[in-house]
């Protein structure tokens, strides 16, 4: 067990005891997870997974308090270690004030989670998912800390339509910052461009989702615009405002659960290295379809297919696509502890691989076995 997991679990147990004692209305919640990954070929997500790796730890603790009926404040601290990504330092996952004027209109300000598609804002909350890895075409684990939250403000609300259902909306503006210990920065570092200060830029966007009159069916659409600029001793990174569009649907009926999502992100990133100007065009198209079934009260199984392709270059090369068939199972030991197991049949090397952890090159296909235990309160 990695040394970092122990303090994390102790922190959670300590906090759980505090919660039980009720800190004058302050709510304390937390989670901790430990994962294992084995891959038949290649090293995935910067882990030494071809030999089996336990370098996969997540933990968070949140504090929140309702100041008045309308105003709530809170903060969540988070740490993660994913292979060579992340580290022992605690990061502020979110920290915000939330003022709800009424059910139709509310405001959040501070560092707030970015709503983009079905799961972007909750992709680091392992306890709420059946899956160990969400579809990597849409929610890449090595870069989740970048898109997860922004520093700024958000307006949100719910509008009841009567018989036609209910609309939920949100809109936001702020600044997004690359995680210096995250995947994008590591990709540049592997290419010889080392950022010592985090590239950042303006972001804005919104989400509209409709709970339809058909019980259990939600459909929606999200949009995000993001610009980015960064400076390193070796050169500069510039991303003009880039638009990401997302369409999604979620259907839940009885013990069945279905979801699907399509996302497109065209980027015109430019890297300047002295006199050399390198355009890095990317046209990412990704989608997934997932289905799950609850076999018993504590046992949940499911499968998904995740598809990613970069349409800008030659799409026939393994480095420009990633197609993943996944089978997954989850068992809840009780309300707090759970275990998961997952098989991946991955074709293509377009996502999740780093040159530094695969110095001898990449094979186009790999199968993987992932397992995870988690605790949440």
């Amino acid at each position, binding site marked *: 067990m990695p040394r970092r997991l122990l303090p994390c679990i102790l922190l959670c147990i300590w906090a759980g005891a505090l919660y039980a004692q009720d800190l004058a209305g302050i*709510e304390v*919640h937390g*989670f901790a997870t430990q994962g294992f990954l084995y891959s038949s070929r290649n090293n995935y997500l910067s882990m030494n997974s071809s030999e089996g790796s336990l370098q996969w730890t997540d933990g*968070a603790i*949140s504090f*929140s308090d*309702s100041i008045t*009926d309308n105003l*709530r404040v*809170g903060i*969540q601290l988070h740490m993660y270690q994913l292979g060579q990504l992340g580290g022992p330092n605690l990061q502020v996952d*979110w920290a*915000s004030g*939330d003022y*709800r004027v*009424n*059910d139709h209109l509310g405001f*959040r300000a501070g560092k*707030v*989670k970015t709503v983009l598609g079905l799961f972007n*804002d*909750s992709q*680091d*909350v392992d*306890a*709420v998912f059946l899956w160990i890895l969400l579809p990597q075409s849409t929610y890449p684990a090595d870069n989740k800390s970048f898109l997860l939250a922004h520093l700024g403000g958000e307006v949100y609300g*719910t509008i*009841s339509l009567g018989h036609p259902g*209910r609309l*939920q909306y949100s809109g936001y503006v702020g600044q997004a910052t690359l995680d210096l210990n995250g995947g994008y920065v590591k990709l540049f570092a592997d290419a010889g461009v080392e950022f010592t200060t985090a590239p950042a830029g303006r972001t804005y966007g919104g989400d509209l989702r409709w709970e339809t009159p058909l*019980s259990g069916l939600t459909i929606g659409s999200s949009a995000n615009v993001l610009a980015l600029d960064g400076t390193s001793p070796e050169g500069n990174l510039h991303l003009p405002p880039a638009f990401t569009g997302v369409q999604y649907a979620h259907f839940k009926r009885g013990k069945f659960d279905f979801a699907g999502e399509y996302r497109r992100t065209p980027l015109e990133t430019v890297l300047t290295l002295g006199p050399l100007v390198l355009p890095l065009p990317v046209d990412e198209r990704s989608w997934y379809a997932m289905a799950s079934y*609850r076999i018993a*009260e504590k046992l949940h199984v499911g499968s998904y297919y995740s598809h990613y392709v970069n349409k800008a270059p030659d799409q026939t090369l393994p480095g420009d696509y990633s197609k993943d068939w996944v089978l997954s199972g989850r068992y*809840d030991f009780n*309300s707090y502890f759970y275990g998961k197991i997952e098989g991946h049949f991955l074709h293509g090397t377009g996502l999740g691989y780093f040159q530094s952890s695969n110095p001898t090159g990449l094979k186009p296909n790999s199968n993987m076995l992932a397992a995870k235990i988690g605790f*949440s309160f």
Partner: protein
Amino acid sequence: MKLSNKIRWLIIVLGLLGCCSAARAQDVMLLVNKSSQISEISAADLRAIYMGTKTRFSDGSHAMPVTLKGGPAHEVFLKNYLAQRPDEFRAQWRKAVFTGQGAMPRAFDSETALIEFIAATPGALGYVSHIAANDNVKLLTITK
């Protein structure tokens, strides 16, 4: 004689099955603080309040949903009014908590503790399997 014995046993078995199905079909009682001006709530509003998408009663007053930590009444309430299992309900609120979008409803170990809290807290809303006469809580009727 043998036939009448069989009929007797059949009646006993059917009776037991009837009792079981009656137990399954049992409902919970919905309570609010006595100071609340409302006396009924729509099923849609009740669901929205417990799902966190609505924070006010129909009269505009603040609603504070509370729950039991577990047990038959908790399961019956979630199944009958939210169409959810306890783990789904918990997961939904965990998502809200860990994304900074909501605060989990306060949960109680016993119905007695839940009733006491509702009696002492304006706007509090909860459910129990049975209730003795209590001047400080009010029963709510659920409408379609």
